[in-house]
Every structure is written in structure tokens, then in C-alpha cells.
């Protein structure tokens, strides 16, 4: 119960012991302390979704999550989807349809898509749009992102 305390974060199946300030967000710890820079900061206000990680399997905004609140939790960042550089089916689908443009939103989008497909193996357009609704992309109009999710869903069955 001090200003800084040591916590354990289980990130991408590795345990990291860190001592963030109380006010440090998970996003700050991931990017600055752990150099996991695949998680992006687009707004720091919880609106854009660029900072999305999976927290115990559920998409969460790391900019609205204090690191100390995640003690002993399982966190998956974008880097965790392709251990050893082997891209996941979802990642491959994003590349195949040509979804990434500037790419800044993509880590968040891929994670949201991954979580969606774990829950619903065959989502319809409405479910896909709903799942994406919290993540902003300025480049793609979301069309190819939705296409990628459909393709990944086909390949996952």
C-alpha cells in the first residue's frame, strides 16, 4: 500500500514484475517500461481503441486501465498473437484482404476481432460492426476489416 508497489503482470504468457506509480496506465507500462509498443496511443481518453489489449481474454482499453489494477492478471497484447512470428489466422486474414492502411488502429482491431471470433465462430455483419464499434479507423472505412473477420471466421471452422 505504497506509492509504488511491485505487481505481477502475466503478459503474453510471460510474467513481468513491475513497480508502476499508482497513476500509470497499463498503456504506459506496456509501451514505456516493457517496450511492447504494438499497443498504440491514439487518444488516451478511451475513445479510439488503438490501445486495446485483451485483459483476461476480454478487449479492454489499456489507456483507461491502471497498471496496479491488473496485478496478477492475464494480458494479451498484439505481440502475443504471433508468438515466434507465426501469424494467427486472424492476422493472416487481415493481410490477405489488404485491411491495413496506415496500420495505426490495426493492433486494436486485430485483438477485437480475435476476441469476437473466440466468442462467436460465425458472426454476421451486424455482430462484426458491433464488435468493431469501439475502435476507430480513419483510413479503411472498416470495410476490409469486416471482410478480414469474415475470412478469418471461414478459415477457423
Amino acid at each position, binding site marked *: 500500500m505504497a506509492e509504488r508497489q511491485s505487481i505481477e503482470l502475466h503478459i503474453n504468457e510471460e510474467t513481468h514484475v513491475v513497480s508502476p506509480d499508482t497513476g500509470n496506465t497499463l498503456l504506459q507500462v506496456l*509501451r514505456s517500461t516493457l*517496450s*511492447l*509498443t*504494438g*499497443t*498504440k*496511443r*491514439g*487518444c*488516451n*481518453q478511451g*475513445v*479510439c481503441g*488503438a490501445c486495446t489489449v485483451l485483459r483476461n481474454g476480454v478487449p479492454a482499453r489499456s489507456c483507461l486501465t491502471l497498471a496496479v489494477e491488473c496485478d496478477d492478471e492475464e494480458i494479451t*497484447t*498484439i*505481440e502475443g*498473437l*504471433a508468438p515466434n*512470428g*507465426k*501469424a494467427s489466422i486472424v*492476422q*493472416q486474414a*487481415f*493481410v*490477405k*484482404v*489488404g*485491411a*491495413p*492502411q*496506415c*496500420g*495505426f*488502429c*490495426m*493492433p486494436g482491431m*486485430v485483438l477485437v476481432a480475435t476476441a469476437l471470433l473466440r466468442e462467436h465462430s460465425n458472426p454476421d*455483419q451486424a455482430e*462484426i*460492426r*458491433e464488435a*468493431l*464499434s*469501439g*475502435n*476507430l*479507423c*480513419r*483510413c*479503411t*472505412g*472498416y*470495410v*476490409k*476489416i*469486416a471482410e478480414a473477420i469474415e475470412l478469418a471466421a471461414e478459415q477457423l471452422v
Partner: protein
Amino acid sequence: MTGYDNLTPRMPGEAPEQEPRIDAVIGQSVLKIDGPAKVSGAAVYTDDLKRPRMLHGALLGSPYPHARILGYNTSAARALPGVKAVLTAEDLPVQNIGAAVCDEPILARGKTRYVGEPIAAVAAVSVAIARAAVQLIEIEYEELPAVFDAEEAMALGAPIIHEDAGSYARATEAPFADNMVAHMELETGDVDKVWAECDHIIEGEYAIPAIHAQYMETCGALAELDNSGKLIVWCSTQSIFLTQLSIASALQIPMSKVRCITPAVGGGFGAKFGSVEPITAALTLATRRPVKLVLSRDEDMSMMRTRHAAKIRMKTGARADGTLLCRDIDIILNGGAYADLSPLVLECSILLAHGPYRIPNVRTVGRVAYTNRLRAGAFRGFGVMQPTFAGESQLDELAAKLQIDPIDFRIRNAMQSGDYNMGSHHIPSCHLAECLESIQSHPDFIAASAERVGPTGRKRGVGISSVTQQSGLFSSSAAVRVAEDGTLVLNTGYIDIGTGSDTSLAQICAGTLGLGVEHVNVVAPDTDGVAYDFGTASDRASRGVSESVYRASLAVKQKLFEFASVMLQCPPDRLELRPGGRVGIIEAPEAELPFSAIVQWGLYAGNGPIIGTHAYYMQEQKINHVQTRSVGFRMGGGVWYGYGATAVQVEVNEDTGQVEVIAAWHAHDVGRVINPDGARGQVYGGVAQGISGALYEELVWDNGHLTNPSLMDYKIVGAPEVPHRIHAILLENRLPDSPYGAKGFAEPTIIGVAPAIANAVANAVGARVRTLPITAERVLNTLSVS
């Protein structure tokens, strides 16, 4: 990253399993070369970089829209432990920067001219300390009267924003005065005389607000000094060369002492032509340590730049038979506190305000004003979107009066290949009518046009807009070198900000030399590289840059043939390129050499390395002064025009006024599709951004203070607001003098969306909204009037 079968490289020089065409990669949906990095979090953006002993920068923005700076007290900030430098204008050379008008200090000097204007900068050991130090800087101000509206700013007696405007260096010949940055006119025919011949005349005033590009990656830079004392600046920019120039001139150091590099850039849309790089570089020079400065979203929205707010008065006349006769246009742009690219934006507004139609009598008068708001600059659509909103709205109103189908009306008046824009600029290829027809005959569009109500009983309507834009500005170049193993190194200095240009340029290079894109090493933009490029703008990748890449690749081919001819003892004209990176003797399948053998012969035995280069300038089209009268107009750079059309179907909730876009169509004559998936992606993105601007986006200021500086208050479209059905119709009328016939098309996909939506709303419920964004409230207000 591995794991993609189709990315497994074949070694160059190996014959492919079946013999494809040499240029097999042209027109293929080749996977984007940066795709795997971007979906895996491996792509590195400016803020992802970290350097040893790196400091963090922060900026203090002005609290006043217009104030004299009487004094600074930075001692408390300097005394804060961890602070390494505090800079104000007093610490910097007295030097303005500015691409069109040299009017802008990198930190406010003497005066501050908008709320948020950077006035001091801090470098400290952490972001938190830098930001805390900024709060400790005390500045004494004398508040001055401010002006926010462009017309009020140009009226007599308005507070003067730049007292020294007369002494600024300018790259424009346009007349200027007091708060007027530039005044331009363009006129062809005799507008005043022909009103009497018009059977129908529509007149109206249109307002377009300032909006922000909302690239997902905010502006930022990281600067450090290298071993030779040269500044290295990694930056999120659309032009490394303009950025290098602005840093060098602001800090009064030679360009040889500045090197700019771009890592991945998270979007730009025109608005990333220079940002915090000079200030970051100044902090590095002051501390001799690496400094990173990345803006927060609210800082970016209050410190960077906007799309020009515009007020447009327009009057259009037609004969009863549906022939357009005449258009008179008055454009007023709000340029904000600094000129930035305003004169160029105005020039493009003026050039295309009459739309892609044969109108014999057109007069356009345009002015751009200084005001005490955030500067306006380049933005996707570059000055053309604003008058297009007015013009395309008027065409529908005229069509209604004429009782003609709006698409037929447009086709009837559409420009054709061989016409002259504004009586002056030659148009070699215009297939606007074909674009319009392709939508008109699209089965889904026919069905949508017939559908007057949606499933819940709400009214539906369709709307159309023609689209045109000039493209291809200024200079580009390319250098292609063949590496020892026969792979290619391509250097252009052009920045892929998400448009897929790295991939499409690699396709052009690879396709010209018979290789796959995996054999092309696209060099990251670096001012220390060999090639120069003006920057990512005006769909230059498809015109100027691809031209350079194509010609440089041909130069490589010529060298390969030259060397091979010696090696194979065969005249060059009997040689042929073979797919996979081989040169062989025509009709002698066994007699061939892989590129690697040829290049190594050159390197170690013969005529030196194989390097092809090309430098390109897009030839300027001049005004024909007999046909066209002009004031202050000088289209710098080339002018080349592209054509397309956008249609939408909307549903209007008459209780609340909310508009939903149900489907969209965008047809464009792209000349030749280099990468179909990439091209469709650009169309989807442009249409979505257009919907966003048409329905939701507006920067709102209250007495100079931005009231919505967050993505919470300033809304852009999310997935639910964009229709599932966006039809990208890519027409291919090849441009003879362009490599593979390609034309630029990605930028203007945004232009027609707002007018198409306005027309669709009018078609659905009869409400004509002349002010953007078309908010629910505006729709209801208009409905209650009509």
C-alpha cells in the same frame, strides 16, 4: 515475420514454375509489403522509438486568441528537477517559416495569434516533468481584440493579425492586404451578359466548417545529434524534404546538418505537412540530447491544422433544354492565424469551383483570410471539396427545376476528353460521363432509387455528385539499384502514409523488370538517401512518382542489356527480359543470365554498378490569357485532372432529423488499376471519411477556444455509421503517357460524398441543407422551414 506462403521469397534469377508476363505484378492484388508488420504490432511509428539518454518534450500553448507577449518568466520551470531546457522565441533565431508565405515563427514571437499556439517548449527527463514544467512558465500578455470570422477579418477596422504582412517573403503572386492572405480570380466567357439567356437560375450560400484530419497517430518527432553533429529527426510527416527545409531554415543551420527519416506514419490526409519537428530539433540542439515530442490528441487538435472553413456564394444558370450556361462563384476561406498552404488551396478551389462541366461562362473570385483561429492547410480534397459541395447541390436544384434526372443532367453537361478546363488547361482524358453511367446502370443503384421508404417506414432517397480534382504536383525522382543477388533497391523519398504506395511503387519497379515485389527493397524515406520527392499529396504516387520509378527501372533494364550484351556477345536489341530476373537471347531459351550474374560482372569485371535514376517534374499548364482572365492565379506545379462520381442512399428519421447512409457507390476512372485490393481500400476509406465530414465533423470554437478538442466531443464515424455496402467501381481508361496507364484517384474519393448526401436528403424528404455538417438538427430545421 513469416507465415505467409505467398510471401515466401523465390530467389531472383530462378525461373518461375510457369512463365508469366514480365509485368505480371501490375494489376494484381499483391499483398501490401507492410501488412504483416502492421497487423503484428511490429510496425514502428515515431512514438515507438526510444534513444539512449532521451528526453521528452512538451509545449505550452497560448491561452489567448490574440495577445501581445510582454515578457516571460521561465525560472520556476527551469528550476524544476529533471528539466533540461526551456525555450521561448527569445532563444531561437528570428526567422519565420511557411511554404507559401513566410509568416510563422516556430514559437510565438512578440504576439500570439490563436489559442494553443506554441509559445514555449520544455525538454525534461520524463513526460510528466516536462508537462509539469510547462505549467510553471509565466508569461505576461496584453490581450488584443481578436477576429474569428473570415469576412469580419477582411472588413475595414478589423484587428490586424500580421502587422508585418507586407514584408513577408511569398511564393505566391496573389494580391494581399491586411488580413487578406490572398485574393484570386479566374474568369472565362462573359458571366454578366448571359444571365438573361438562362431559363433557370439557382442562387445560394453554402457553409463548410473547419474540420481536423484525425489521423489516428498524432503528430510527433524525435530528434538527436549523430556523430558528425548532424540532426537526425524521425518524424510523422508527409514530406521529409519540406520538413528538412523547415527545420534548417527555422534554426538557421545548413540542410546538410539535418537528416529527416520517417518510420511508419499513422495517417496524414494532407494535414501532416510539417508539425513539431523544428521545435523538437531546437530542444535537441539546446540539450545536445535526443528529445521526443509527441502531441496528445487535444494538443494536436488545437495546435496543428484544419481543413479550411469556407463560405461559398454561388449562382448557376441553365437553359430550359438542360444546358449549363453560366456560373458565378465567390469563395471565402478561413485560413486561420498563419498562411500555411492557404494560397495553394485557394488556387485549387478557384480552378475547379465550376465542376467538371462544360460551362462556357464562369467567374470565380476567391479570398482567404487570416483569423485568430488554428491555421488551415492541406486536407484530402485540397480546396476542391468546398466548392464541390456548393456546385453539386446547385446542380440537383437546377435538375429539379428543369425536371431532368440529376444524373442525365450531369452527363449532358459533362466535360469530355480534349476539353479545356476554364478555357485554359488541356484535358487529355475525361470519362466522367462513363463514371456517372456506371452508377446509373448499377443494379443496386436502380433498386435503391426506386426505394422510397425503408423497412421501418422511414423515408429513403438517393443522391449523386460528380467528382474531379487536379493531381500530380511538382517534383519527384527515383533511383533503382540492382544488388549483387539480383534483387532491387528502390529509393524515392516518397512516404507511404497508409495509401499503399510502397507496394504499388514496388509493383511498378518489379513489373518493369520482371520480378515480384518481394524482390524489391523499398527504402524508407530518408533525406540522406539519393532521391528527392516533394511529398505525399495530390495522388502523386500514381502520377509523378510512378513515372520516376518506371523510367528509373527502364534505365536499369537498359544497363542490364548493355552488360548482358557483352557477356552473351549478342547485340542488345536481340535480348529480352525474362520473368524472375533474367536476361536472355530472343528465341534462344538456353542462352540467358540471371540479374545476379550480370550485376556481379559489372561490379567486379566490367562497367560498375547498375543504377537507374530518373528525375521528373510535372509540367505546369499555363493559363491561356485570351480565353481566361485571371488575378493572382499561378498554378504552381503541374495540373492534371481526374474524374469520378459518388452516389449514396440515405434514410432520414423525420422525428429526430438523423441521417443514415445505407449504401454508397463510387466510380472512378483510374486509368489502370495497379493493385485492385489497395485501390478498393482507398475508395472505402475516402467514402467513409466523406460520410464522417458530411454528417458529424466540425471544430467548434467559442471566442477562439476550441470547445471540442477530443474524439469524445468531436465525432468521427465508427463502424456502425459506415454502410456495409460501398461499391467501388474502378473504370480503366488508360492514360497513354502514364506508366501502365494509371491515373491518380485516391484523394478525391472524399470530395463528392457530402454533396451526394445533401442531394440524397433532399431527394428523401425535400430538405435542402446548405451547411455542413448535415446534423440531425440542421435537417429538422430545414424541414420545418420547407
